[in-house]
Structure formats: structure tokens, C-alpha cells
């Protein structure tokens, strides 16, 4: 396992711990973003295992291309991820009017029967 792979996995793990340990809702959402950055990084890493060149097939001599499939896939996931992030932040904005501290334990006390 390369150092890069270890670092990417650490990013994912840190994001996950952030979701659990942070008390504030905004911080939780940001931690989720860190985690998804880690996942995106892992896709890019796997794509570049066979080569680093941009996969455009018009170069004269054969070079080691990066695998285009994971990159194409992660593009979709990035778009979905950021739209969900935006949607959640809008929800948080609405919630912050009544619970300005945005502490999850407070919100749960308010809104769970």
C-alpha cells in the first residue's frame, strides 16, 4: 500500500470521525464533505494506477494512460454530492432561525417526540 493510499483512507476516516464527534450540525456536514473528498481522491488514485497521462487517444507514441472509467464515474458522484450538500445547507439555514447554536443534541430535544 502506498503512502498516498494510506493518506486518502485517513481522510475518509477523519471525515467519518468528524461526523460522529462534532456537535455542531454545520461541522457535521463539513465533515461529511471531507469524507466524500476522501472517496473522490480514492477514485482518482485507482484511476492513475496504470498511468498518469490524460486518456486522449491522439498522441503519436503509446504512453501509459490513466483509466478513464473511474474518473467519469466520480464526476457524476461529485455533482450528486455537492447538490445534496447544498440542499442540506439550505435546510440548516431554516433550522438556524429557531436553534441558532445548531447543536444536534438541542435540535433533537426540540423536534423528536
Amino acid at each position: 500500500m502506498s503512502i498516498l493510499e494510506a493518506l486518502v483512507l485517513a481522510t475518509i476516516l477523519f471525515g467519518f470521525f468528524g461526523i460522529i464527534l462534532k456537535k455542531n450540525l454545520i461541522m457535521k456536514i463539513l465533515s461529511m464533505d471531507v469524507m466524500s473528498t476522501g472517496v473522490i481522491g480514492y477514485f482518482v488514485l485507482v484511476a492513475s494506477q496504470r498511468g498518469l497521462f490524460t486518456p486522449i487517444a491522439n498522441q503519436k507514441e503509446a504512453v501509459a494512460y490513466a483509466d478513464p472509467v473511474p474518473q467519469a464515474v466520480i464526476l457524476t458522484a461529485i455533482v450528486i454530492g455537492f447538490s445534496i450538500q447544498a440542499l442540506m445547507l439550505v435546510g440548516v439555514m431554516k433550522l438556524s432561525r429557531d436553534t441558532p447554536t445548531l447543536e444536534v443534541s438541542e435540535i433533537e430535544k426540540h423536534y423528536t417526540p
Partner: protein
Amino acid sequence: MSSITLIWIALPFFVGFSIYLLPKLDRWLAIAIPLLSFGYGLQRIFDPFPLDLALLDNFGVTLSSDTLSGYFILTNAIVTAAVLLYCWQSSKSAFFYTQMCILHGSVNAVFICADLISLYVALEIIGVAAFLLIAYPRTDRSIWVGLRYLFVSNTAMLFYLLGALLVYQTTHSFAFAGVGQAPPEAVALIFLGLLTKGGIFVSGLWLPLTHSESETPVSAMLSGVVVKTGVFPLVRFALLIPELDPIVRLFGVGTALLGVGYAIWEKDSKRMLAFHTVSQLGFILAAPEVGGFYALTHGLVKSALFLIAGNLPSRNLKELQQIPLSMPLWVALAIASFSISGFPLLSGFGAKVLTMKALVPWQVVGMNLAALGTTISFAKFIFLPRGGKESLKSSFWLPILLLLGSLVIANGFYIDAYTLTNIVKPLVTIGIGWLVYWGIIRRVSFKLPRVIEQLEHLIGVMSLMLSLLFWMVLA
């Protein structure tokens, strides 16, 4: 057939957005979609040949639609139609109907997709559309309930995505079949995502709050079809890859018992129904090869029950024992409760018989206990007092008639169930269930703690489930 499939899968999204442009036609456009799915679903059930499609070359989207998909699509069609009819007279905006169409379309997409990435995209769209429907009343509480759902499901989907990548790394393809050759950690990550999304076992404990605090039609939709999007891929994996079959079956038994264990003690009608969703999903997973039919009957009965429960005079079962219900409402409630308990003449009976027959020996005790628990907690509904006078509007009866009527007609899918021994067994189970209800449950009040339903615990449980899954796959 392939072009029909493509048109059918794309149409809900086009219609969904057209509703926004033609708000005057919203309900009429929306109802056309489930009607189309109904026809398509029936065709798939009776067509013996599965249809496999690969769009755009090697790494494109792959679809596969067979009898199993047919049952799930039919469930989706009937439940969506019933929910739309229920909302017909209410003043829901075009936005609501747009989201309903998009939700219906993406749920359909899950039921025919055959690769991990199409599944991921469809599941995420479902998450967004379900969030928007839950938060439709725009109250702070509904926004929080929706946000909590989106948070849990999105975190689970990140794990899923990681698993999908590991499958690609080993097999150089995202096809479902590749999961069989993938390393155990990949399988564990994918299963974690699907179990959480499908509301199964402890990772499914987000479900009771979400389903019970949503509006009545949205609860019906969520419990009737949306959770089945997490279950369907698991059933597919179990059928496709024999090594995963015991794991799926074990989770089936586990979640069936866990859900029932909570539901028996529950005093809130909507929460009880939500816990029964957790439990009934277990019946689908416990016997994957016949899961489609069980999913159909469960979808019909659970959405009917949620629609009825939304029109009861109170949510608290203790209070309901003091208020007499009007006779027609009680009859509808009793029919639905009898079906889910497995009483003959209703298709819940056929589905239970079929599932019980397909169990492997070690599952039998657990699943029979779960069936007994189901009859105990639905005795709470059946023995509610009758004789009240309030009348309900026609927009309530049309969807209920549709759902309960389909429950009777669906008997036709498995008419061989009607043998003497098969008929006696559920009657005995219901009898014992009622005895336990009158002897114990009605007298004892016992409140289970809700700590584990807090957001942090729901996320934390994912790490425990992940290691559990890893060792299960490795073993």
C-alpha cells in the same frame, strides 16, 4: 421490448419536469405514470424471458428486467397510484407532484438496473426526492426529520461508493456479478450502504422516526416502496452469488425479529407500523427467491395501513381504545391487519406460505416467532372498539379500495397455497397471538429506550456494522 423499456424508464422524469411547466394538469399527468408502470410491471411478471440491455458499449449503463423486477415495479405502480388518488382533493402544489414523479421514476430505475453505479445514482436521486417530500410542509420539524434521513443515507452511500470502487479495481467492471469476485471489504462496504438505505437490522433504526413523523401520504410512499430500493439489490446479490445468500438470509431473520421486538411494545400507531416495516423487510430477505411476491403484498398492505392510521382519531393506541371507530374504517383496518398477519383469502397469506416454504432449516424458528409477533401487535388494531359515527371523504376510500382490492386479486399469483395444512397454520398462529395479546401485552406497559435513534448513534452504528459485515463475509 427494449425501446419500450427505455421510454418507460425515461418518461417519469420528462413528465415530472413538464408538470412544473403545466401546473394546471399536475394530477392528470402524474397519474398517467403509475398506470404505465402497472402495465409494464405486469408484462414483466408474465414474460418468462429476462431482458438485458447494455447502453453505450462496454462501460455504459446496464439494465436487466425480469420477473423479480416485475413484482417490485408493480408494487411501485399501485402504491404510487393510491398515494396520488389520496392527494387528489388536497391542495398540494405542482412541486409535490413533480417530486412524486421523480421518486417513482428513480425507484423504477433501481428495480431494473444491473450495475453498481446506475444503482448509486438512482439511490441518491431517491434520497433527494424523498427529502423534498418529507420536508414538503416546511415546518422545522419536518425539515429536521428530512435532514436526518438525508444525512444518514448520504453517509451510507459514501461507504457504498467506496465498495463499488473496490469491485471495479478487482474486476474492471461495475456489473453486479463482479461483487462475487470482490474482496470481503468491498462486499462489506456495499452491503452497509444497502442495509442502511433499506432500513434493515440495526442500521435501519433511522426508519421509525422518519416514517412516523412524515405526512400520511409520504409515509405510505416511503414504507410501501422507497425502502424496498435497498432491499432489491440485496435480493439480486443473493440470487446471483450463492456465497452471499446465507448472509442475506441471516439479516432477514435478524431484522424480522428486531422489528417485531420493538413493535410489540410500541404504543404509537404510526411508529408501530414503521417498526413492522423493518420486520417485514426481513421476510423479503429471508427467502430471496420468492421475495418479489412478498414485497408486492407488503407494499400494498403497509401503504394501506399508513393511509388508514393517518385518519384515525388519535395516534396513541391507549387513547384509541377509548374512542369508537366508524364501522367502515374499522373493517378496512381489520382487512389490512388480517392480511399482514397472514390470514387466508388475502394475499398476505399466500406470500407468507411461499416464504415459509423457501426457508432453510435454521431460519424456521426465527421466522415463525416473527410471524407470531406480527399477529400479536396487529391484534392491537383488530380489537379497537367499533360503533363511532364520523364519516370520511371519498378521496380516502378510493385509494383504500384500490390497495385492498389488489390484495385480494394478488391471491391469483399463488393460488396453490390453499391446502388444509397451510390454512390451519396461520389460524393457529393468529389464535396464539391473540391469546398473548390479551394475556400479556394489553396489561403490561413497557417502554424501550430510544437512545439508539439519535443521529450520532445511527452514524456510529455504521462502523460496528461494517466490522460485523467484514467478518461475516470473511467467514
